[in-house]
C-alpha cells in the first residue's frame, strides 16, 4: 500500500465530504431558520441534475447546464416554499415529514413524466476529463478536484453570507428567535422564501456536479438525502459549522471504510470472508459513527441553542 494510494483516498474522502456539505448545508439552514424538516431536499438535488443534463444536452455546454440547474432548483424551492412549506411552519414535525414525503413522490413521478424513465446523459466538460499527477505516482481526476473547489467555495461563501451580510444577520436572528425578528419589522415571508431558495440552489448545485460524475435518474436524491441527514444529525441539527465537520467526518469514515476495512479483516480471515465482512462493515460504518456521536453527544457535535 503506497503513500500515493492513501493520499488519493484522503482526497476522495474530502471530495465526498464537501459534496455532502453542500447538500446538508441547505437542509440544516432550513431547519435552523424555519424549524422545518424537509424530506424533499433530495428532490431538489434531482431537479438540479435533470435540468443541468437537459440544458447541457440542448446547448452542448456543461457550464450553461450547471447554471440552468441552479436556477431551476432555486425556482422549484421558492415555489414549493410558497405553495406548501409556508403552511407547515407552525405544524409539528410529523406533519412536515408527511407533507414533504409526499413531495418526494410528486417530484419523482413528475420527473418521470417530463423526462421519461430512462437515465439522462450528462458528462463532465471535455476540458476536465483528465487526471492530474499526484506526488508519489498515480493520478487524480481533475473534475473531482474541481468539485472540491466548488465545495470549499460554497463553505466560504456561506460563512461570509451568514457572518458579514444583512441577510446573514436576519438568518442568525431567525435561528435565535423567530417571533422577535418578525416583530422587529423584518419581512419574514420573504426571508423564509429566500432561505429556502438558497438551500434548494445548493442541493441543485450538488445534484448537477455529482450527476455528471454518477447517473442522472429518477430517485437519485433519496440515498443522498439519507446521507445528508446523517451528516446534520452528527453535526447538530441547524448548525452550518456542524454540517461542515459532520460532512467531512462522514466522507472520511465512508471512504476509508471502503478502502481499508476489508484489508483489516484480511489480517485475521480468509480473503473471501474478509471481503464479505469488509463490505458489510463499510456500508454500516457511517451509521456506527452516528450512533457513537449520539451516545456521546445526544444533540450532535455542535448543538444549536445549547
Amino acid at each position: 500500500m503506497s503513500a500515493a494510494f492513501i493520499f488519493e483516498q484522503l482526497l476522495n474522502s474530502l471530495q465526498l465530504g464537501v459534496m455532502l456539505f453542500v447538500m446538508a448545508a441547505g437542509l440544516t439552514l432550513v431547519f435552523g431558520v424555519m424549524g422545518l424538516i424537509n424530506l424533499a431536499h433530495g428532490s431538489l438535488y434531482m431537479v438540479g441534475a435533470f435540468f443541468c443534463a437537459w440544458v447541457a444536452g440542448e446547448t452542448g455546454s456543461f457550464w450553461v447546464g450547471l447554471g440552468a440547474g441552479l436556477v431551476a432548483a432555486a425556482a422549484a424551492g421558492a415555489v414549493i416554499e410558497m405553495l406548501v412549506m409556508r403552511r407547515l411552519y407552525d405544524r409539528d414535525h410529523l406533519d412536515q415529514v408527511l407533507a414533504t414525503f409526499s413531495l418526494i413522490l410528486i417530484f419523482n413521478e413528475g420527473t418521470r413524466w417530463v423526462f421519461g424513465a430512462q437515465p439522462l446523459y450528462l458528462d463532465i466538460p471535455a476540458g476536465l476529463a483528465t487526471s492530474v499527477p499526484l506526488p508519489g505516482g498515480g493520478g487524480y481526476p481533475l473534475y473531482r478536484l474541481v468539485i472540491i473547489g466548488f465545495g470549499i467555495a460554497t463553505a466560504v461563501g456561506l460563512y461570509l453570507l451568514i457572518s458579514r451580510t444583512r441577510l446573514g444577520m436576519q438568518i442568525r436572528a431567525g435561528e435565535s428567535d423567530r417571533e422577535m425578528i418578525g416583530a422587529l419589522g423584518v419581512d419574514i415571508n420573504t426571508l423564509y422564501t429566500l432561505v429556502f431558495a438558497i438551500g434548494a440552489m445548493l442541493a441543485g448545485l450538488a445534484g448537477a456536479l455529482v450527476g455528471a460524475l454518477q447517473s442522472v435518474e429518477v430517485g437519485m436524491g433519496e440515498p443522498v438525502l439519507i446521507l445528508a441527514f446523517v451528516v446534520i444529525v452528527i453535526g447538530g441539527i441547524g448548525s452550518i459549522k456542524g454540517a461542515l465537520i459532520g460532512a467531512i467526518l462522514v466522507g472520511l469514515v465512508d471512504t476509508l471504510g471502503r478502502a481499508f476495512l476489508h484489508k483489516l479483516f484480511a489480517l485475521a480471515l480468509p480473503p473471501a470472508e474478509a471481503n464479505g465482512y469488509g463490505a458489510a462493515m463499510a456500508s454500516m460504518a457511517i451509521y456506527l459513527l452516528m450512533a457513537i456521536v449520539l451516545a456521546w453527544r445526544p444533540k450532535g457535535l455542535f448543538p444549536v441553542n445549547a
Partner: protein
Amino acid sequence: MKRKLLALALAASVSMPALAQAENVKIGMITTLSGGGSSLGIDIRDGFALAVKQGGGKLGGQDVEVMIEDDARKPDKAKQIADKFIKRDKVDILTGIVWSNLALAVVPSAVKGGTFYISPNAGPSQLAGKLCNENYFNVAWQNDNLHEAMGAHVSSQGMKNAYILAPNYPAGKDALTGFKRFYKGELAGETFTKLGQKDYAAELAAIREAKPDSVFFFLPGGMGIAFMKQYAQSGIDAPVFGPAFSFDQGILKAVGDAALGVKNSSQWNKDIDNAANKAFVADFQSEYGRLPSLYASQGYDAARLIASALEKAGGVGDADAFRAALKAAEFDSVRGAFKFGSNNHPIQDIYVREVIKEGDVLTNKIVGVGLKDHADAYASQCSM
C-alpha cells in the same frame, strides 16, 4: 330497485356463463417502478404488457387480468405485495421481480403455497439449487450464467490478472462466483460494493493500485452508468468486461461513448435473427418509441411462456397440466432456442456482444457465442 338489479345480474350470469369473472387468469406483477433501478422494472413491465397487447388482452386465448405493483426495490414491500396478491386477490401466477434479494424474500413461500412464479429476471443460485420448486420457473437465466460466459471470454482473450467487482447482495455474489467458475487466470483483486452505490472513487483507487490487466464488473442500472463514467476519467487503461446488465440498452445513452467497444455477455440481443425477435423489436419500438433492452425481452418472453402454457393446458384450472405445459416451454423465444433444465432454469446460448454506434445510437451487436447450450451449475443440488 336493488332487488331488481340483483335479479338482473343473476339472470345475466346464468345466461352468459362465458363472461363470468372467475374465468380470468389473474397475474400479479411485483416489480421496481420507482426509485433507483426503476428503468429495469419498467422495461420488464412494458415487455410483458406488449405480449398481452399483441394477444388483444389475452394470453394463449385466455382472458388475463394483470395487476402491477411497485416494490421500490425493498424486500419487505415486495413481500407485503405478494401476500396481498395471494391472499386477497387470489392470483394464479406471480412474476416481475428484478432483484435477487427481493426474489428470495417472496418466492419460496409463494411457490410452496401453490402459486406459480415465473421469474423474468432474478435467478439467485438458491432458487436453482436447494430451494428449487416445481412451481418456480426462471425464463431469463440463473444469475451466474452471463458472468460465466464472460469469465470464459476474458480468459480466451489472454487476460491473466483480472480485477472483479460486484454489489454486496445475492446476485452480486452469484456474479463473481460465476465469473470465477470459468475464468482461468489470477485475480488482482475482488471487491463487493454497496447495492445502489454511485461513487466509486475509493474502489477505482484500489484498482489502480492493484494494476490488473482487465476489469470485470457487474453493476446493473445507474450503478453501471456511474462506474463507467468514473472509470473513463480515472486514467486506468485496463479493458473492462461485464455482463449485459452493465451495458443494456436502457443505460448506454447515459454512459455515452465511454462504453464504445466494450464486450459484454447476453442471452439476447436485438439483432438475433428469428421471426419472433423481429416482431418483438419492431412492435416494442413502435409502441414505446425506444429500443428494447434485454429486460424488456425477458418480460416479453415471460408473458409468451405463460401464453403457451395457458393455451396448451386450457387455463390454470388443472395445475398439473399447466405446470407440465410451462416446463415444455413450447413458445418461440425471442432469443432463439430455449428449453428448461431439470431445475426449471434455462438451457440456452450465451452470446458475447460489443457496444457499437448505429448512427447516433449506442447499441450492441453480437460478435460471438460465449457458451453454447449452457445450463447452470446448481441443477444437481435441486432434488425435484
